[in-house]
């Protein structure tokens, strides 16, 4: 009961700001359409590097081109979600900390983490995720055995898990802003390191997995949905993915709570 009482206001607040974001985006209809077309092209262009790398190769590390495109599709879906719902919020947080305007968020009677993380939405970027789903669909239809209902629902669940890990990583990076203040470029570093998650994780040798250690959970998050669609996912690795996600979310929450105590507001 008490939980429900805490959840309902935040859902209402987020619902209101998301509606506002959609209305703003759709108010400029021509701009929205042009943006959507460009974004779809950009999503489609992510197929090219995979086709180029697979030029003259039957398989790489046990993946065919179509199978590797499943990973790329999953990556594009996640990236679209991050750019639409995570990045604008957490980049904004850095400014809020610097200028002390985070006070306005903390004063509200809802959980600040949720409000800070999801109050801004850039609907245009969701089109990129749609492009990712198109890539997933086309690549899945080219598999020797098109995935069944069970595989598809498993893949969608794992994509959701991947989104949670992505969000947790962002929250971890941005929480450091409470100590270092100017970390907006750390988020760009995170974005560029994430590029490794475009490729099936098996492609990289163990040496590289150490190098991209931050990216490894992400690599798993884009690779496991692809494995599910191929129908070769071991239940144990699905479960361990779930475990990683829970750990990441818990750790990022703990760091956030600690970080918030470090906030020296503008007014106190």
């Amino acid at each position, binding site marked *: 009961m008490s939980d429900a009482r805490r959840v309902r206001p935040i859902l209402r607040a987020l619902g209101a700001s998301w509606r506002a974001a959609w209305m703003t985006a759709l108010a400029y209809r021509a701009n929205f359409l042009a943006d959507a077309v460009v974004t779809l092209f950009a999503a489609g262009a992510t197929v090219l590097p995979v086709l180029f790398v697979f*030029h003259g190769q039957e398989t790489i590390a046990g993946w065919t081109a179509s199978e590797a495109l499943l990973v790329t599709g999953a990556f594009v879906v996640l990236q679209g979600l991050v750019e639409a719902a995570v990045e604008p919020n957490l980049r904004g947080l850095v400014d809020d900390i610097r200028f002390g305007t985070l006070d306005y968020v903390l004063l509200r009677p809802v959980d600040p983490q949720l409000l800070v993380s999801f109050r801004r939405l850039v609907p245009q970027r969701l089109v990129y995720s749609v492009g990712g789903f198109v890539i997933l669909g086309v690549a899945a239809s080219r598999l020797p055995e098109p995935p069944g209902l069970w595989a598809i629902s498993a893949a969608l669940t794992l994509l959701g898990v991947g989104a949670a890990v992505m969000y947790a990583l962002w929250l971890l990076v941005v929480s450091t802003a409470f100590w270092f203040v100017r970390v907006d470029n750390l988020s760009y570093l995170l974005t560029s390191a994430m590029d490794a998650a475009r490729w099936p994780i098996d492609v990289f040798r163990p040496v590289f997995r150490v190098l991209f250690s931050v990216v490894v959970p992400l690599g798993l998050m884009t690779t496991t949905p692809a494995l599910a669609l191929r129908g070769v996912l071991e239940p144990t690795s699905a479960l361990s993915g779930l475990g990683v996600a829970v750990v990441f979310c818990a750790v990022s929450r703990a760091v956030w709570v600690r970080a918030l105590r470090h906030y020296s507001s503008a007014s106190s």
Partner: protein
Amino acid sequence: MLRALRAYPALLRIGFAAVVAYRAELVVWILTASMPLIMLGVFDRVADAGPVAGLDHAGVAGYFVAVLIVRQLASTWLVWELNQQIRTGALSAALLRPLHPLVWHSAETLATVPLRVVVLAPLLLPIWLWRPELQLALDPASLLVFTASVVLAWGVNFAVHTAFASLAFWLGQSMGLFQVWFGVWVLFSGYAIPLGAMPEWAQLFAEWAPFRAIIGIPADVLSGRVTLAHAPQLLAVQALWLCAFAALGGALWRRGVRRYEGQGA
């Protein structure tokens, strides 16, 4: 011109002082150019099935080490800086100085080179330890060709940035357009994929497009895949693109400054 030359050492010193002051931030920016590392990982696996475009494991490592080096040496942030200066009106103050703003920006860019080299070293060392047989063309003649090639590559890149940044005089903001160029550049410059590994139609496009003048040509020279007899032809290609983009960038800049309406102009 003479005045610019005389002021240049001082400009470099000022630029370097700024680099030292903002070193942590710059190191992070430099590290964001990590894509060649990722592609090294990918192509190292591809090379398991035999050489790609004539590159075996050591060849792939050598190529991407060269790409990492070239990317840092031929890099500039001009389009971001100018876009901001034009939008906020900060360019007005720069135009009042007795020196051309682009001269100032070029010094600012060159002043970051020492830091870029310092950041590169710890990245390249592990690659070299991992693939000790990787080879770069480090004999005096090749190094001479490489120096010329990388200077030309930097020039082409700076001119391209000038052209795109100048569009902001009309559009207010030209970063979106530059991102489109950058996306195509990543694919067809040799930055992510060695040009020889691509399908034929893509290779043909890459050969006639300007992108490889910024990364592919100097990287091929440094990784020892260019014979000295072939080098003059490649340098000429770079020089041609430099002339073309310098003319375009210069024209856009001159016409743009005339209609610049920033604060204080």
